[in-house]
């Protein structure tokens, strides 16, 4: 753990109904994440990585146990409180970028700030800074369809980072990218982690990502089987 704990997962179980029975995606997960971490949750498909990320991101609640994010127990939050938590402290990066196709790069990055109610002048400064971080200052008018996969993911990073969240949750962020773009993205995120102290938590099974991690939590069949510090490149 680098600094003070901002995420605590205690004895978390998560089950989903499946046919007449149920499928347990997470079993007895106990984890703590500190400020400024660059951590990966790794494991094969179906090991519970995304489910864990969803619980940390207050998009889902544990069936048993508790998850405390930024001092708030996810189980106790109302829909609105959960949205507020995500709005203030969390940023998401997805495998498929999920940019809004009808908006240009600038507008995609602008959305989180609009939800925060930030004044337009401050908003403009923040957007341009975020696009500068990811090296897309010259593409602000472009629509997602006019960008390459790597550029789209960089816009998604800018969108996640523009409000300077405490935590960024990235679900397979390099899965759709080639090696060159993957490294570019990872280096960008690593730089932002160091510069802004943002905690990055990846769900991945991509070896390229794993090489950048400073901590690796391994999941298998919903259970934490290893939690180790990594020696980064």
């Amino acid at each position, binding site marked *: 753990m680098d600094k003070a704990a901002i995420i605590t997962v205690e004895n978390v179980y998560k089950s989903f109904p499946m046919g007449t029975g149920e499928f347990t995606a997470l079993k007895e997960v106990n984890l703590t994440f500190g400020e400024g971490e660059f951590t990966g949750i790794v494991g094969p498909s179906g090991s519970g990585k*995304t489910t864990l990320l*969803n619980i940390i*991101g207050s*998009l*889902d609640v544990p069936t048993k146990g508790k998850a405390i994010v930024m001092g708030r127990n996810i189980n106790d939050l109302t*829909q*609105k409180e*959960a*949205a*507020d*938590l*995500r*709005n*203030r402290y*969390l940023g*998401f990066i*997805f*495998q*498929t970028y*999920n940019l*809004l196709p*009808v*908006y240009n790069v600038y*507008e995609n990055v*602008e*959305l*989180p700030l*609009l*939800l*925060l109610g930030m004044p337009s002048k401050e908003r403009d400064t923040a957007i341009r800074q975020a696009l500068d971080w990811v090296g897309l200052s010259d593409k602000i008018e472009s629509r997602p369809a006019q960008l390459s996969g790597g550029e789209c993911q960089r816009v998604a990073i800018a*969108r996640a980072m523009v409000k300077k969240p405490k935590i960024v949750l990235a679900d397979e962020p390099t899965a759709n990218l080639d090696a060159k773009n993957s490294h570019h993205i990872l280096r960008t995120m690593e730089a932002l982690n160091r510069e802004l102290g943002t905690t990055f938590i990846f769900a991945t099974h991509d070896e390229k990502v794993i090489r950048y991690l400073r901590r690796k939590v391994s999941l298998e069949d919903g259970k934490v089987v290893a939690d180790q510090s990594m020696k980064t490149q």
Partner: protein
Amino acid sequence: MMRFLLKGLIRDRSRSLFPLLIVTMGVSITVLVVCWVNGAGGDVIRTNARFFTGHVKIMTRAYAEQADQMPNDLALLKVNELIAGLKKRYPQVRWVPRIRFGGLLDIPDEQGETRTQGPVMGLAVDLINAESREVKMLNLEKALVRGRLPRAPMEILISDEFAKKLGVPLNEPATLIGSTMYGGLAMQNFIVVGTVRFGIAPMDRGAMIADISGVQSALAMDDAAGEVLGFFRNDLYDPATAHRIQSEFNRRFEGNDDEFTPVMLTLEDQNDLGTALRIFESASSIMIFIFVMVMSIVLWNTGLMGSLRRYGEMGVRLAIGESKGHIYGTLILEALVIGFVGSVAGTMLGLSAAYYLQVHGVDISGMVKNSSVLMSNVMRAKISPSSYYIGFIPGFLATVLGSMISGIGIFKRQTAQLFKELEV
């Protein structure tokens, strides 16, 4: 945020253009159909009122029972006194005496012998008195095909079609052969000074329009008239006032068994016009109801399709920190914009089409050639003040309702499930 949402709405055609087209089309069709029903229905009511029923009508009780046979032997007497009293008691109504009569119109040759003759349906109205509005009421100036309007009691107009059939020249005498009020033979020479075409099949087949003083003289009906018609001064039928006047008038003669006792009927009591009026009114309501239902279902479906397509977007917005309530609110806001713009466009389009049909109409003379229903040969739409909002309100409501119903899916869906759509 509002500007941001509007930008998305305008750029995403499946979210804006398609629903907008549906609303515009639905609203314009509703406006057009309601205007058309109003026009057609109103035309039947107006035409009947102008020619036969008035907004209210007074006859003797016996005449009323056989009104179809035009029994002038049962006509009202002391009509001038009656009308003077009515004018005093009901100043909001314009009272006019009329005589309907049947007879044979005989056209003589140079020697005064019958050259040709045909049955006529006569209508005697006040054509000469300067204060009379009957010429305007019957639209005679516009209906005039040849000649001029009568200026003297013994001058008449006849249907143009009838005049052609009988070969009646203008300014030549024509003899009306009928029966007097007392059952005697009536023969009176009139001068045909003009021919008319009303565009109303029963009136155009064989009508004779004469001044009431001439007909009173011909049929020995001094100070008598078959009917006294009342028209509201704004020319619009007002059922509530008509019924109030009717019950007040008839109450005065309750318990009087004399068959010559005057009785007042409203427009609705005559020629099944009450049923017609109710049919036209309910047709408009049914149209609007069907429109709201169909549009709600269509827009609900469109909203559902749009929402399904946008689950990914919803997931992203949830992840970014937007609450479900806010997302739902923005969907409603989009619907309000679409509903407003579509309803305005639809109303304008519908009114334009209705205006065209109001001016030009649709000629149905071929269909009503042998009809006995008193309706114009050219059916027209009618734009009324209600036409401006009759489509707008349901169009707006249907859009918002459709969006509200389809948006419930967002609340019913688990946040994580919505979010999962991102992976698809």
